[in-house]
């Protein structure tokens, strides 16, 4: 797997250094903006869900993930994939149906599989699967964990509770990463969730951490200790990130008023870097945009996918 991390098949090598969180966050952001551009230009089909405003979560967590860990992502998963594999070529080729696509162009934006990473767009569906993988890990590869990214809206799904119950009961190494962006498509959390996510975790006796920080290093410090307990076999963990969705749910379906959008933008991690080093931020941002633009040009020029997967 590691040989694929830095040098995606047939593409420009990713220019960011290992461990440079800001570069990776800006690469993901540039990637998402590029997708919206390509949609506007009629070069993509179907739909897409961008993670604009939530890039810091997978960037913070990915270095904490062991190569043996399984990762389950959701419909808003481009950042999750890019943070783990730094492979914008494979992902864009997958979305565009071009040669070199991660899953041969069959999975598209929402159904990515690569090694121990899998995404699915049906809400909550991956949590029982993560629990099942975790049982196998606990017996065959102790110390490894299964991670599942979900959103606040996912807590409406019964599968979440079936899985939390099983995982807590059998002390399975499952980390549930909740990206609580305060809105499920167009329905605010206040209109779809009774009680709290913390309360729901508590009902199963599952430790829960509420994380408001957008600083990847700080997040890793917060998570490292409780994660150790998961890896030691003491059972699952719920990490709830307070995030802000800058864009629409998919495209053109944002019903929020100007005030709500202003609040979402005010919570963007971007401002912290802009305040600290505006010139440095502008330079890295411009580099990443240029890189992603070159990736998009190169991928768009490729022939259609033959249906063969690029990597396993």
């Amino acid at each position, binding site marked *: 797997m590691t040989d694929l991390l830095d040098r995606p098949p047939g593409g420009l090598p990713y220019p960011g250094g290992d461990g440079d969180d800001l570069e990776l966050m800006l690469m993901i952001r540039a990637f998402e903006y590029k997708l919206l551009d390509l949609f506007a230009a009629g070069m993509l089909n179907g739909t897409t869900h961008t993670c604009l405003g939530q890039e810091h979560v997978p960037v913070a967590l990915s270095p904490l993930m062991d190569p043996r860990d399984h990762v389950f992502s959701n419909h808003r998963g481009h950042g999750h994939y890019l943070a783990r594999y730094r492979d914008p070529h494979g992902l864009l080729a997958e979305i565009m149906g071009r040669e070199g696509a991660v899953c041969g162009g069959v999975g598209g934006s929402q159904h990515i599989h690569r090694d121990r990473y899998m995404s699915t767009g049906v809400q909550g569906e991956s949590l029982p699967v993560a629990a*099942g993988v975790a049982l196998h890990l606990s017996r065959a590869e102790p110390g490894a964990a299964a991670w599942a990214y979900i959103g606040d809206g996912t807590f409406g799904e019964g599968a979440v509770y079936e899985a939390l119950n099983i995982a807590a009961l059998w002390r399975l190494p499952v980390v549930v990463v909740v990206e609580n962006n305060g809105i499920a498509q167009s329905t605010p959390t206040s209109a779809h969730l009774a009680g709290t996510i913390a309360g729901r975790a508590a009902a199963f006796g599952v430790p829960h951490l509420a994380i408001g920080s957008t600083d990847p290093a700080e997040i890793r410090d917060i998570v490292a200790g409780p994660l150790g307990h998961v890896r030691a076999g003491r059972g699952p963990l719920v990490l709830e990130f307070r995030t802000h969705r800058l864009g629409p749910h998919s495209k053109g379906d944002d019903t929020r008023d100007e005030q709500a959008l202003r609040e979402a933008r005010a919570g963007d991690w971007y401002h912290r870097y802009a305040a600290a080093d505006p010139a440095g931020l502008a330079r890295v941002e411009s580099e990443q945009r240029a890189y992603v633009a070159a990736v998009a040009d190169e991928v768009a020029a490729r022939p259609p996918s033959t249906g063969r997967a690029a990597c396993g």
Partner: protein
Amino acid sequence: MITMAQALNAALGDAMAEDEQVVVFGEDVGALGGVFRITDGLTAKYGEDRCFDTPLAESGIVGFAVGMAMGGFRPVVEMQFDAFAYPAFEQIASHVAKTRNRTRGRVGLPLVIRIPYGGGIGGVEHHCDSSEAYYAHTPGLKVVTPATVQDAYSLLREAIDDPDPVVFMEPKKLYWSKADIGRLARTEPFGRAAVRRAGSDATLIAYGPSVPVALETAEAATQEGWDLEVIDLRTIVPFDDATVTASVRRTGRCVVVGEAAGFAGVGAEIAARVQERCFHSLAAPVLRVTGFDVPYPPPMLEHHHLPSVDRILDTLDRLQRDDLPDTRFLALGGAA
């Protein structure tokens, strides 16, 4: 003499003995051995790591099995009754059936979902559904149903060994059927129907709980001069077109028998395939004898609902035995 339930139990036990990755779980399958005792004694023999009880959570159980199969286990899960599997359908349709294709062949899910199905036990409606069409209509699933004690063993062993997901449908009214089998053995791979009775006048096609009814009908029909061939599909998916086609081309007449509601059911698919492949050999329309298009009736009425010898014999009357046009159905408004 052993029962079909005992043959299934033996298949699970033998598979667990041969491969420690085979793991059995579901609701009350441990100490109780399942409501039909199919998992009887497995926890005692193989331990709680190999055969264990779960919470009441069918979606969670099947999703859990998907994850376990991705990890390297060969899970065999029990859905307690046909209708209890419906909460799991989300996982079955979206994960179980699609993962092999979505990953371009890289991730197979070697798991078995056992579902007791069908009526004839005087049960309530959610204990008697014939749900095979839902699974057969979902590409990516194999759908298997034994009709004999020997097949119960052989097909379940085959299902557990299969590299892809199998929905294994157990005809619950045949759980207590008995056969004298010297030694349980693996017989044929999936996709081979069995000719249970050779005949020359018409072909009865059945599967699972309807096979004994079809065979009984064939015996009764000899009184009326019919020599019927009876085919037991054994696997609905993959479907054995070759055996079915060869039979109907020879007999020229075909009746499909099944407990499920007829509309848009497996019988409709079989009838379509037969006429597509045997059109020029057919001397009569392909007919179906099925459950009615109603929710499963209460116990006092189920014998009317399920295909019976009499209903099948009545249907045979409409097969234009003398190659003369049958105009009687016109008086009935054309209804089959």
